């Protein structure tokens, strides 16, 4: 391995230590910008049915979200009808004189126009800096309309992307009524955003729902994945909470446990047989449904037995180089590392940015508690200025790293061209979804088979040139 291209080589625990002590600075270069707090707040709020997200700001902030989340994602693929994204369209005059009056009128107008079940005022940079008191306006406005009006301070500068998710989930908790009864054998799924899952393909959340249904566990609400205000109001009547992704559900799960005493099932992502079993039992055991769950696990395991056998045979003794930086993301990469190990491979995770470690600290620590502590390599390209330079350099470095390991197999997406079989785990090809649960084992087995059986076929010079230039290594 070329030492001059390696910025870090050690275990996940060692990387975490370096980030915590400040030895590795968790800062992204200027050419790499994650979403702001406003965007992620909007993501969560837009996952509630019949809600008006009322953006107190100029048109740029809401329009990006309405184009991307509302029209492209929700209307086009998730079967959601056209819902409003309202905006107060703050201008220079409002910035000078304040926009509170306009906001109050906007809430009334939004209610008259859209008859929503809920209005959530989202502040952005402008309204935050000029000091508009969105919470007071929300309280005032709620007396004048026929639905709940909440306010969320979601100024883009006010926190990183995670804080938007977390604050939005915290706000949703304000809608939860004290329980009148307990819904036996019922849970909430926490940590969703954007809306329900796409209609045309089966996704991870659908696999979770299917398996829970087989066991006889009911779901009150997927918060906030297309849930209604009514479902949120009854959210405290469930027996427990769970999440299909520990990372996304962790904050609201912990908060609901702390404030309402509702237990939160702490399990990792259900990648592979062991993690799937843990996930299902993590929910079923506290509900007293362990036996039924074990029956389902046994039945499902039998269904995918040939796939499990194949994966063991195919991956045993191999080095699984895992780099999933954009799609599907770093937590999945770590879950995959665990799955690869279960099937007999040695996992090496590439390029989990220190920024990611900082932003996902509780989840990373939890994974370490579970014993997930894979070998990690960070290359210098990860820290280069410029998205092309960074991407090109990390590609070159990845190709070098792969050659250092015996019998490597790459888990990532097809945008990489290492000299070894490539397992294309992108979420942008729904034909091989879900990746979770038992159906996921079948799909991952199919993807590994594709990678190994076609390893000698030529890769696309066209796509490689597109990504890394015609003079790519």
């Amino acid at each position: 391995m070329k030492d001059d291209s390696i910025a870090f080589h050690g275990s996940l625990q060692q990387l975490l230590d370096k980030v915590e002590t400040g030895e590795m600075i968790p800062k992204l270069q200027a050419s790499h910008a994650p979403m702001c707090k406003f965007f992620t707040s909007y993501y969560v709020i837009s996952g509630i049915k019949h809600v008006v997200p009322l953006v107190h700001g100029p048109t740029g902030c809401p329009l990006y979200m309405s184009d991307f989340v509302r029209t492209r994602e929700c209307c086009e693929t998730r079967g959601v009808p056209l819902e409003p994204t309202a905006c107060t369209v703050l201008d220079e005059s409002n910035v000078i004189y304040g926009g509170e009056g306009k906001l109050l009128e906007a809430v009334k107008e939004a209610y008259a126009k859209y008859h929503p079940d809920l209005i959530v005022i989202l502040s952005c940079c402008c309204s935050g800096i000029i000091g508009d008191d969105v919470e007071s306006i929300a309280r005032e406005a709620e007396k004048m309309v026929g639905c709940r009006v909440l306010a969320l301070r979601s100024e883009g500068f006010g926190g990183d992307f995670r804080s938007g998710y977390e604050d939005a989930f915290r706000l949703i908790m304000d809608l939860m009524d004290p329980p009148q009864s307990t819904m036996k054998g019922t849970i909430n799924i926490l940590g969703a955003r954007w809306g329900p899952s796409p209609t045309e393909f089966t996704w991870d959340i659908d696999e979770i729902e299917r398996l829970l249904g087989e066991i006889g566990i009911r779901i009150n609400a997927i918060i906030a994945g297309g849930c209604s205000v009514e479902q949120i109001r009854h959210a405290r009547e469930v027996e427990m909470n769970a999440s299909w992704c520990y990372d996304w559900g962790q904050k609201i799960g912990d908060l609901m446990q702390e404030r309402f005493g509702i237990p939160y099932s702490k399990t990792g992502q259900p990648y592979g047989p062991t993690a799937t079993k843990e996930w299902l039992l993590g929910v079923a055991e506290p509900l007293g449904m362990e036996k039924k769950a074990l029956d389902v696990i046994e039945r499902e395991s039998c269904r995918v037995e040939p796939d499990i056998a194949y994966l063991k045979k195919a991956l045993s003794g191999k080095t699984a180089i895992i780099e999933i930086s954009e799609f599907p993301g770093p937590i999945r990469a770590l879950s995959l590392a665990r799955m690869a190990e279960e099937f007999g491979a040695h996992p090496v995770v590439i390029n989990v940015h220190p920024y990611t470690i900082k932003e996902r600290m509780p989840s990373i620590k939890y994974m370490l508690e579970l014993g997930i502590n894979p070998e990690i390599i960070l290359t210098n390209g990860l820290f280069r200025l410029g998205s092309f330079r960074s991407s090109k350099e990390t590609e070159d470095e990845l190709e070098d790293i792969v050659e250092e390991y015996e019998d490597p197999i790459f888990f990532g997406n097809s945008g990489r061209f290492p000299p070894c079989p490539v397992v294309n785990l992108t979420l942008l090809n729904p034909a091989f979804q879900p990746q979770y649960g038992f159906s996921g084992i079948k799909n991952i087995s199919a993807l590994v088979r594709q990678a190994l059986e076609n390893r000698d076929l030529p890769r696309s010079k066209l796509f490689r040139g597109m990504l890394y230039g015609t003079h790519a290594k």
Partner: protein
Amino acid sequence: MEHMPNEPVDAIEKPSPDKCSDPYLRCAFNGAAQTALGVSGCALLAHSPQGCDYLVNTAFASQECDYMETVTLCTKLCVDEIVHGGEDLLARTIREAKNLPISSMFVISACGPEIVGDDIVAVCEQVQPDVKFKLVPMPCAGFRGSQYDGIDIALDMMIKRLANGEREKIPDSVCLIAPHANANPTWAADLDWVKQALSQMGIRVVGTLAHRTQLSDIENIASAEASIVLSHDAGQMAADYLSATYGIEQLCKGMPLPIGMTNTRDWLAAIGERFDREKTAEDMVAEGERMVTAACRRKWPVARFLYRMPAAIVADATIGIPLVRFVTEEMEMTPELVALYSSRRAVRQLLEAELKDIGLSPDIVYGTDVYKTRKSLAEIRPRIVFGSTIERHACEGLDVPYVVEVVRMMRQFRMINREYFGYTGILNLLECVQNEWTMAWRSKEKRYESKW
């Protein structure tokens, strides 16, 4: 609702009574980014919180930038910079980028830093000696207006800071303004058609403001004899400035852009007349009309069966206004609703003139938003809508058989850019109608299962 059938032209510029809008247009910051990214070999530095960088990304896509060539950076302002100011961070970020192989860096500021008073002009002046590329500051906070205002602001800064007034005029030359203020998702093809038409007439394009434009083209812009604004939504301010400062005459002012037979004929004729190329223009029109007619005779577009169908047009003014005549004359439909994103005075005047000339009196919504569009569609109940993916969903439950997505579509993808301008543009629009008609007729379910 702002319904104004046959509203007199002087009843305009009324502020919208709405306090709560669901807008079609992005903010000024986005428009400025879109303009700056039209310059080749540049970098764009957003002095903003990190979310605004996503508006830069959409501008990047709209200008079809190549990520191997164009770098975008962001200062990613946080609470600290909002409280204590972000000028130091801006200076530091510019210096971090000093080795980038670029000719210019546009520094655009968002709402946050402008409200707290960061002086990006002063920072650029201070840091300029430390870097080899030219720094061009563009204060253009989102609250300054719509994306069209942002385009005007950026064009103004670009011309004032970069144009060199000492250049000699180049005979028979033009500069093209604001081709990117156009809701055709592949508007670059419209620009290509214009360039090709001008080239056919022997007219030189000195520079385009802005798409794949070299810095030297902007420096030379004052050498153009004439300008042509390629948008009804933005760019007029730049044309006025070029006229007042450098004596650059604006052509085709107050004329609909060249969509459809009549508009294209008039537009080419006006340019031919200005440059004494009437015969060439006439030949181009004759050949173009012959080509379109022959293509239709061979392909048989079904639009001919949609005779006098009640139609709605929901678009920007750049596509929407010329489309009115094309839909009425060539496709023989009857526009009963025209909803435009813009509400500028010039837009109103142009549309009113067109409607009067054609003899139409549809309902008009200026400065429409998604709510007004949906309400108007519910009232008018057109049978065909020319609009975007938003209108496809807004028409749910309204019994609208055809929604022809011609602007801002998300449902369809184009690998090859397609123009609406000119003669091939006519065929492209007929093709959009044809495909929508085909999809509407396609069976959504099978009546029984086959045996094999």
